[in-house]
C-alpha cells in the first residue's frame, strides 16, 4: 500500500459526501442517501462519522474524538490516530480547543460554539426502523409525514410501564417536519440538540445515510402533553469531580455491590478536577 490522499478518501468520494452534507443542511433531519465507501475500519465502528469527518476536515483543524464521552476509549483512540496519520491534523482532548469533534453516543457537557462542528457516528439512522424494517416503507412514511406509528409505540410504553421506555436514541422532530434519530445518545443529551450554535452532522456508513442539523435548529423530543419529555440521568453527583449536572457512568468497585458514579465526559471531569472541584470518592 502506498500513499493515501489527504484524509484518506479520494477526491471524488469526498465531493459526493460533501454534496450530501449540503443537501442534509438544506433539509434538516432528512436522511440523504450517499454511496458510503468501504473504510479501513469495520462497518458499525464509526465509518459514517469517519467519512463525514474526512470530507469536512482541513489541515488547519483541531480534531477531537470521543466514544461514550471519553477520549481514551479504544475506538476513539483508533479513529483519532487514523486522522493524525492520514490528515496530519492537530488533535486534542479539550472540548473547547477542538474545531471538529467526532462523537459516538454523547454530546460533550461543555456547550459548543459557532466555531465548532460535531460529527456523530450513527448505527441505525432510521428512527422508524424498529417499527417497520422495510426501507421502501419508512421512506414513504417520511415523505407523507406519517409518524402515527411512532406515537402509538411511545404511547404503548406509557400504558404498559407508565413511562416512555426509550432511554437512548430517543426520537426527535426537526423544525416540525422530519422525525430524526439523534444516534444512540442518552436522552439526557437530547435538549442539547436544539438551538446549538455548532453545526451537527450525522454519518451512517453501513446504512449509507447522512443527515444534518444546521446551527440554531428547532429540535423537539417526541412526547405527549400528559407525559412530557424528561431528560434523565443517575441521581448522584460525580464521585471524582462532584458535578451534579453531567451524565454519569456507573462503575462497579467490588463484588459486594460497591459502585460509584463518574462523569462519562472525561474532559469535563478532568477540567473540573483541575479547577479544584472534588467529589466524595476523590483521592
Amino acid at each position: 500500500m502506498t500513499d493515501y490522499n489527504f484524509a484518506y478518501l479520494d477526491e471524488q468520494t469526498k465531493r459526493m459526501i460533501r454534496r450530501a452534507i449540503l443537501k442534509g443542511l438544506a433539509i434538516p433531519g432528512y436522511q440523504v442517501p450517499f454511496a458510503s465507501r468501504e473504510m479501513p475500519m469495520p462497518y458499525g465502528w464509526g465509518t459514517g462519522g469517519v467519512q463525514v469527518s474526512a470530507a469536512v476536515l482541513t489541515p488547519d483543524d483541531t480534531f477531537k474524538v470521543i466514544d461514550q464521552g471519553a477520549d481514551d476509549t479504544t475506538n476513539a483512540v483508533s479513529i483519532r490516530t487514523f486522522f493524525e496519520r492520514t490528515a496530519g491534523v492537530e488533535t486534542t482532548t479539550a472540548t473547547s480547543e477542538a474545531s471538529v469533534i467526532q462523537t459516538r453516543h454523547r454530546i460533550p457537557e461543555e456547550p459548543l460554539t459557532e466555531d465548532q462542528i460535531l460529527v456523530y457516528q450513527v448505527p441505525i439512522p432510521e428512527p422508524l426502523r424498529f417499527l417497520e424494517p422495510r426501507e421502501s416503507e419508512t421512506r414513504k412514511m417520511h415523505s407523507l409525514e406519517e409518524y402515527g406509528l411512532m406515537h402509538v409505540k411511545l404511547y404503548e410504553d406509557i400504558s404498559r410501564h407508565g413511562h416512555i421506555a426509550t432511554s437512548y436514541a430517543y426520537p426527535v422532530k426537526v423544525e416540525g417536519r422530519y422525525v430524526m434519530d439523534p444516534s444512540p445518545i442518552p436522552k439526557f443529551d437530547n435538549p442539547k440538540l436544539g438551538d446549538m450554535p455548532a453545526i451537527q452532522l450525522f454519518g451512517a456508513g453501513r446504512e449509507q445515510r447522512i443527515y444534518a442539523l444546521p446551527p440554531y435548529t428547532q429540535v423537539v423530543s417526541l412526547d405527549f402533553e400528559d407525559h412530557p419529555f424528561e431528560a434523565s440521568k443517575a441521581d448522584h453527583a460525580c464521585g471524582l469531580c462532584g458535578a451534579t449536572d453531567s451524565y454519569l457512568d456507573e462503575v462497579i468497585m467490588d463484588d459486594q455491590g460497591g459502585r460509584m458514579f463518574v462523569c462519562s465526559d472525561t474532559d469535563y471531569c478532568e477540567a473540573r478536577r483541575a479547577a479544584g472541584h472534588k467529589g466524595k470518592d476523590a483521592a
Partner: protein
Amino acid sequence: MYVAVKGGERAIESAHAWLAEERRGDTDVAELSIAQIREQLKLSVDRVMAEGSLYDPDLAALAIKQSRGDLIEAIFLIRAYRTTLPRFGASEPVDTGAMACDRRISATFKDLPGGQVLGPTFDYTHRLLDFKLAADGDVPEAPTRESTPGDVPHVTGFLNREGLIEEAPHDDTPPPDLTREPLEMPADRALRLQALTRADEGFTLGLAYSTQRGYARNHAFVGELRIGAVAVEMDIPELGFTIEIGEITLTECETVNQFKGSKTEPPQFTRGYGLVFGQSERKAISMALVDRALRWEELGEDNVGAPAQDTEFVLYHADNIQATGFLEHIKLPHYVDFQSELELVRKLRREAGADQVQEAAE
C-alpha cells in the same frame, strides 16, 4: 480508590504487536509465501477476490496471509484497499461464450456441442483424508488432450431456438453500481446480480438451499456450469478501438427452471443466473437459485413470503463486511446507553414494586 481508566493507546499497540506475533506462529516453521497461498489455497484466493470485488490473486493471497486465514477479514482488507483505487473506466461486457473452459457440465443434456468437461473438481472424489498429503505433496502428472477449438455455445441457447425458454434480450443499458451509488429499492435485476456476486457465500448458500426445501421452490436444473478464462476488453477512447487488457477466471451458472406460466407469461422454462470471480461453483449455483427466486414479481408469480423472494431482506443482509462489522460492533463500549437502560429499568422496577405494596395494602 478509583482512577478513571487510561491507556487505550498503549493497549491497542500491545494488542497489535501480539497479533503480529500470533499471525507468524512458531518461527521454527517456515513462513508462508504469497506464491504458496496463491497456488495452493487457490479456492480461498478465489473467494476473497469474488466477495472482495477485486480480481488480483496476489493481493488476495496477501490478505489471506495478513488475516491469518480468516477469509471474511481478508475480504475486508481487499474491499478497503479497492475503495481507494482510482477508476479509469468500465470494460466491455465479457463474452462467456468465448470462455476457454476448464470445466463445463450440463445437468439437462447428456451430451451437447462442446461436450461435458469435468475439469478439476472435487465431485466424485471420496472424501477420505489423504494422509500421504501430510508427508509429501508430490502428484503424478494429469493426462492431457488437445482442447476442442472454437467457442462453447451456451445450453440455454439450444432451448431458446425452440422458444422453450424465456427470452433474455440483449440490453446495452449501463448497469447500476452499488459501489458508487447507495443501494436503493426497488432494485433491478442487474443491481441484484451485482449484490449477489459479492454476497457472502454462506448466506447465499443458505438462501438457495431454503428455496430447494420449499421456501419459494423454483425447480432449478443446472442447465450449465462453466469455469474458465475469459478476455477482458476495454474501449480506449484515445485509441478509438478496443484492446484486451487481461484475462480473468470466472464461474458461470445458468439454471433452467420449470415454470407453469402465470397471468403474464406462457408456460416455458425460465432462467436463473450466477457469475462469480474465480472457481466458485457453490457460490455461482447458489446465486442463480437466489436470482431466480427474486424474479417472482417480473414473472408474475406469487410472493409466498419466503426470505429468498424478499429483495430488501436479501440485498440488505447479504454483504458479509457490513454484517460482520455491525455484528461485532456490539463489542465496543456501550456504557452510556447501558447506563440509561439501567436507570430506566431501576425506575420501572421501583414503581412496579411500589404498586405491588400499594395493592397489598388496599
